[in-house]
């Protein structure tokens, strides 16, 4: 780096300090503006001069890039249209069917390009493995999110999730009243997981749910592996991955899956039912984060404010996902009651795996799963 560019950078830094100072001092002023450099580092709407200033700045950017959020996933389509209509900001939805890792790859490969994703919606393991890529931010409703469901400085925070469940076609198998029922002869060749638990989060949690039901703890998934071993020996477990197609044609009439994904099978199979055992309520949430190199920093923050408003949370709820502010909204009476009533009933205390518990479970499965079920 030469002296010229150094002094230019210093100059920019000085200007930035003044701008931040200006924004900070005028935060009570409703007509305050929020420059791009302020928006990039703003850790809340207030730090950007208040909600109105954030809206103005986001409208000036005029665009928002989101990634891996299909319109029919957790009802994202309604949130996208609502945001567009309310603020007139255009949304580019990239790679809708991508995975969490695809989102991170887009962030690292596109860098500071204007096509880079502004906001991310990822599974737990990927979220925790890439915290250096996020800009800290706290939405206005931050206080409604439990401490266990967010990173204290605002690098990431949970958005929506659900509970592990056993979905089944009640026209093909008898009603399920406990996980142990699956070992009965009526379930011969009928029980499947959604993926390989060595790889897929939904499948890992399916084994963990069985483990909890069999008296295991979140620290010990071995009872779940043992359960599937017995299921396999009984001839009830089939190793094919359950998909919408296999459920529809009846190959996998009993599936361990997230309740919000499993519920959607009801469209193809009207007799599809969901069972959750009260001593094995296992929850998992997805996480939001803002790309620290977001090309539209103000729009990114405004999008988060929208998602965590009552409107955005109810949008997710109508997609059968449980929004993270659900408990607070039930208390405040702002929840969409019809949508809430449509969710599978949960009677019991939910368990959420910590990072180390999930990682221990993964290591145990890597070493023991293949041997147990082949």
């Amino acid at each position, binding site marked *: 780096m030469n002296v010229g560019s150094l002094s230019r950078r210093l100059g920019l830094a000085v200007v930035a300090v003044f701008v931040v100072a200006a924004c900070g001092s005028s935060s009570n002023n409703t007509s305050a503006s929020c420059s791009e450099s302020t928006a990039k580092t703003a850790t809340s709407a207030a730090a950007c001069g208040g909600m109105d200033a954030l809206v103005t700045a986001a409208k000036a950017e005029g665009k928002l890039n989101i990634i891996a959020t299909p319109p029919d996933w957790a009802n994202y389509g309604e949130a996208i249209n609502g945001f567009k209509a309310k603020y007139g900001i255009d949304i580019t939805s990239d790679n809708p069917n991508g*995975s969490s*890792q695809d989102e991170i790859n887009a962030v690292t490969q596109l860098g500071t390009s204007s096509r880079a994703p502004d906001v991310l919606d990822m*599974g737990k393991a*990927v979220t925790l493995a890439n915290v250096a890529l996020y800009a800290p931010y706290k939405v206005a409703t931050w206080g409604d999110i439990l401490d266990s469901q967010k990173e204290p400085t605002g690098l990431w925070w949970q958005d929506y999730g659900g509970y592990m469940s056993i979905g089944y076609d009640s026209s093909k198998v008898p009603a399920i009243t406990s996980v142990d029922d699956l070992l009965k002869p009526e379930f011969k060749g009928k029980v499947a997981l959604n993926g390989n638990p060595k*790889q*897929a989060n939904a499948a890992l949690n399916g084994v963990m749910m069985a483990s909890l039901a069999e008296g295991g703890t979140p620290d010990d998934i071995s009872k779940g592996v043992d359960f599937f071993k017995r299921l396999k020996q009984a001839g009830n477990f089939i*190793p094919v991955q359950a998909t919408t197609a296999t459920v529809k*044609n009846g*190959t996998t009439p009993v599936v361990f899956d997230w309740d919000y994904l499993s519920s959607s099978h009801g469209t193809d199979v009207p007799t599809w039912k969901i069972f959750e055992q009260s001593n094995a309520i296992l929850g998992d949430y997805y996480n939001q984060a803002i790309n620290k190199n977001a090309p539209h920093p103000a729009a990114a923050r405004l999008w988060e404010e929208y998602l965590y408003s009552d409107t955005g949370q109810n949008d997710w709820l109508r997609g059968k996902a449980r929004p993270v502010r659900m408990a607070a909204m039930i208390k405040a009476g702002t929840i969409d009651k019809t949508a809430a009533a449509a969710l599978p009933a949960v009677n019991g205390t939910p368990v959420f795996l910590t990072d180390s518990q999930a990682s221990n479970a993964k290591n145990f499965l890597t070493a023991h799963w*293949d041997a147990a079920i082949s």
Partner: protein
Amino acid sequence: MTIAGAPAVSTTAGRPLLGGRRLPLDWIGTVPFLAYVAVFLFLPTVIVLGGSVFDANGSLTLVNFSHLSRVYIVKATIQTIGLSAFTAVVGAILGALVAYAIAVGNPQGLLRRLTLSVSGVLAQFGGVTLAFAFIATIGPAGFVYLWLAQHHADIYARSTWLFELPGLALVYLYFQIPLMVLVFLPALDGIKPQWREATESLGGGTWHYWRYVAGPLLAPAFLGATLLLFANSFSAYATANALINQGQPVISQQINGALSGEVGSFEPGFAKAIAVEMVIIVTLVTVLYSLLQRRTSRWLQ
């Protein structure tokens, strides 16, 4: 080339070089092929080989290869070799019989044209579509199975074997037999009727013809095609993964297991070491195949 070119240079010393000694340009036609092979075969092989000797921190190591002794990798390797050998041998025998039936038939006949077209399509039929075709027909909810079960022929009475190695073998045969027909038919067509007539005019019967003439002549082609089927089955991935998602019984699935996952099991160096193991096995098979191929082509000229 050299004999013709050498005097040309000495006698045309005063002329422009290009007029006398032309650079051989025949190889230009192979450039697209060589470039293709370099980009899609050699480059990936080098990347895989290179990546297999580094650990997660980027330092040189052979630890990835020592992981190949893990119980589930050894088991997957043995199962895959067994599965590939079985489907190769059975596919080769059945495919050869079909090919022979076509070869002795009318060369312009409908049967021949139909069988060849169908084989051409089915030899390329694989992956999720093929697996699902089997699941939807003879799977535990498939209409063929349900019909059989209603007629007291429950093929899954003991176990749902479609989702085990026998099921995989059955599905693999669905593309192995047509492939055998395609690769073995040219060898059968190369057999001249005169050889049989010659055998008979010398007093030999059918047994003598097959034992001393056609058999030895076709054996290298047959074995070569069998090895091709072996490699074809050994490298299959999508079909197996769609049918048996749990336990990853096939070695190519173990690469996937070490490479990708939402739950964080990520060992890229180890995945590449498994790939190297597969490359070595397939290389051995391919070398055997080309040795046999050379012998066959000498006979059939």
